[in-house]
């Protein structure tokens, strides 16, 4: 038996399992932060202290923001004065949205049965939204769910909820997909961003910063904790297309990207599964036909022509997928077609060598 060492392939296993060709559009082709949304203000609370958050809410609200969403979980109730003041600050304003987490996922029913991450002392009778994204820890965050039914009640994702409330839209378009791809525009510099110190210690009038804006408070790192991976995720904007290892975007910024997408209506559209299957099937059929023609007509040297055609088809399909996403925000799922470009040539060769030649071997010779 000949031992084969596949160790060299190990590092790519994880990377490729989390690879999506369209990530290239976000990290290579789209100009990062070239779109700037001046309606959204991100407030970096750093290491979030409840006393400071209470003060921040008071100051920000004094400038008249339209909506204030908090990407901070208040799980514990410590029964002290600070908590009471924080609750008072929440209750004093009707434009505040607090964060919760979806929990108790029932795989059989495909639904969540719980919301956690915010103590009733704070969240009771206040607007809440969940901060979950699609994907598990370490995986690229490409999708999110705009809303979920939790115990028969519709709960919205934070990005969706803040955008809807900002636009005064109480009826979210429920005919949209339950899972949306995030149309990233950039990191925190795609939005106005400000640190808590500038609000708490500064003497400037920040009306221009906050007046009538959609404000989102959360963690965007601190100078001391520059390397902190807390609340930081891997996104398609990561400079490494495959084998993404270092998280590149804070959760708050992802919610802001979702909010922007909702405000602008720049959702990434998808074709229906039936149409996608049909296009993929058509592509494979065309490729088989082309390869078969070349194999039977071009001889010798057919394999060189086929390799060139394969490369061209691969590049063309990839160009189409990227082009359509870049210009029309439409995600074509041609994965099967692209795989077909790679594998169909072998299928044609086997078919011709095994089946056709076998048939002609058994065919009675005409004399």
């Amino acid at each position, binding site marked *: 038996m000949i031992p084969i060492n596949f160790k060299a392939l190990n590092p790519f296993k994880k990377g490729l399992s989390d690879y999506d060709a369209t990530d290239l559009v976000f990290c290579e082709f789209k100009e990062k932060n070239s779109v700037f949304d001046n309606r959204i203000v991100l407030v970096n609370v750093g290491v979030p202290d409840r006393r400071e958050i209470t003060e921040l809410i008071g100051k920000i609200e004094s400038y008249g923001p339209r909506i204030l969403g908090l990407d901070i979980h208040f799980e514990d109730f410590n029964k002290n004065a600070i908590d009471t003041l924080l609750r008072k600050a929440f209750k004093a304003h009707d434009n505040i949205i607090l964060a919760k987490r979806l929990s108790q996922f029932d795989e059989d029913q495909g639904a969540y049965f719980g919301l956690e991450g915010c103590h009733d002392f704070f969240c009771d009778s206040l607007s809440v939204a969940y901060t979950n994204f699609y994907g598990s820890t370490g995986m690229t965050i490409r999708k999110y769910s705009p809303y979920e039914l939790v115990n028969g009640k519709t709960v919205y994702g934070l990005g969706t909820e803040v955008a809807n409330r900002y636009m005064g839209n109480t009826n979210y378009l429920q005919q949209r997909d339950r899972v949306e791809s995030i149309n990233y525009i950039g990191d925190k510099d795609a939005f106005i961003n400000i640190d808590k110190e500038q609000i708490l210690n500064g003497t400037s009038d920040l009306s221009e910063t906050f007046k009538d804006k959609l404000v989102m408070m959360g963690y965007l790192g601190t100078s001391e904790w520059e390397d902190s991976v807390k609340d930081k995720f891997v996104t398609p904007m990561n400079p490494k297309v495959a084998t993404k290892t270092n998280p590149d975007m804070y959760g708050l910024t992802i919610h802001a990207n979702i909010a922007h997408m909702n405000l602008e209506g720049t959702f990434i559209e998808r074709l229906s599964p039936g149409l996608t299957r049909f296009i993929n099937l058509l592509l494979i059929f065309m490729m088989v036909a082309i390869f078969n023609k070349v194999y039977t007509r071009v001889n010798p040297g057919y394999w060189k022509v086929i390799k060139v055609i394969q490369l061209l088809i691969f590049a063309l399909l990839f160009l189409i997928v990227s082009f359509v996403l*870049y210009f029309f925000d439409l995600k074509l799922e041609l994965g099967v077609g692209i795989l077909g470009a790679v594998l169909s040539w072998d299928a044609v060769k086997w078919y011709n060598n095994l089946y056709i030649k076998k048939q002609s071997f058994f065919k009675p010779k005409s004399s």
Partner: protein
Amino acid sequence: MRCSIFLVFLFFSTSVLFAQGEFFQVISCKGNVSHQLDSGERVEVVPGSKIEAKGKLILSDRCMIKLISKDRPQKLQSAGEYDLSELYYAADVNTMSFTGKFWKYLMNGLNNTDDQRSIKKYGNQSASGGIKGYNKSSEGKVKLTSPIYGKISGGNLNFMWRNKDNNECTFRLLDAKRNVVLEEKVNRDNFEVDLEKAEIVKGKYYWDVSQENEKSNQVMFEYAPLNFEKMKGKLARISDYVEGDGLEKSWIEAVVYEMEGYEYEAGKKYYNLMKSNPKHLLFRKLYVLYLARIGNIDDALKIKDSKY
């Protein structure tokens, strides 16, 4: 003559019209940044403000400003005076078209095939954003330090809390329905429980500590005995683990335990790594980051700032 006057007028009016649209939007700024108008008047610059591309931008020491104009972001961080109209036209650089970028990328070498992922493959939404808001001032309250949350595999579990003066405390272990399973009075800052001997069954538990007038939060943990053979198998599949030395092995074990949700065991491993290599900055950083991840910011900051 009339025609030339008309052309001059047209030139000036269009210049004025175009100049009206020339402005910067401030993305963020830190420190003392001001905008000096042509009249000499100075206006403070704050994030979100719009500044006309006229006059000067003045940055003092340790200041930074990020601006955007014509979809081109710019960052200034050196102290000095910047002519805004120069900055505005400097932003007017050509960007590569989509086709150019595509072919550049393709020529740089594209070898991988696609693997479109379905929603099912993503599993449920176990990743969640947000950060825990905590109380910096914890006076008048018993602060629990370990285990904070996560799964516990078994064995001796050392429950720890802050009790500088070794006052009498009541430790309680409660089951998922909040029935008291174990209650002990102790004069120290920890209490050890052998989960197997105490006949604790699998499931979720809460624990808390109370002193005379103070009570801690209730912290949940899950007793989920670990299948060590399965864990060994998982580790054996990691080539770096098999080939690694003692330190690398412990590090990988800590990471795998944490990924599996066994935060307490992972914490012990990170801590032991740091303790056994006190001069090694990496292991200190790993432990500090671990503490930050589980929300124990106080201890994380303390260890980060301590001498070594």
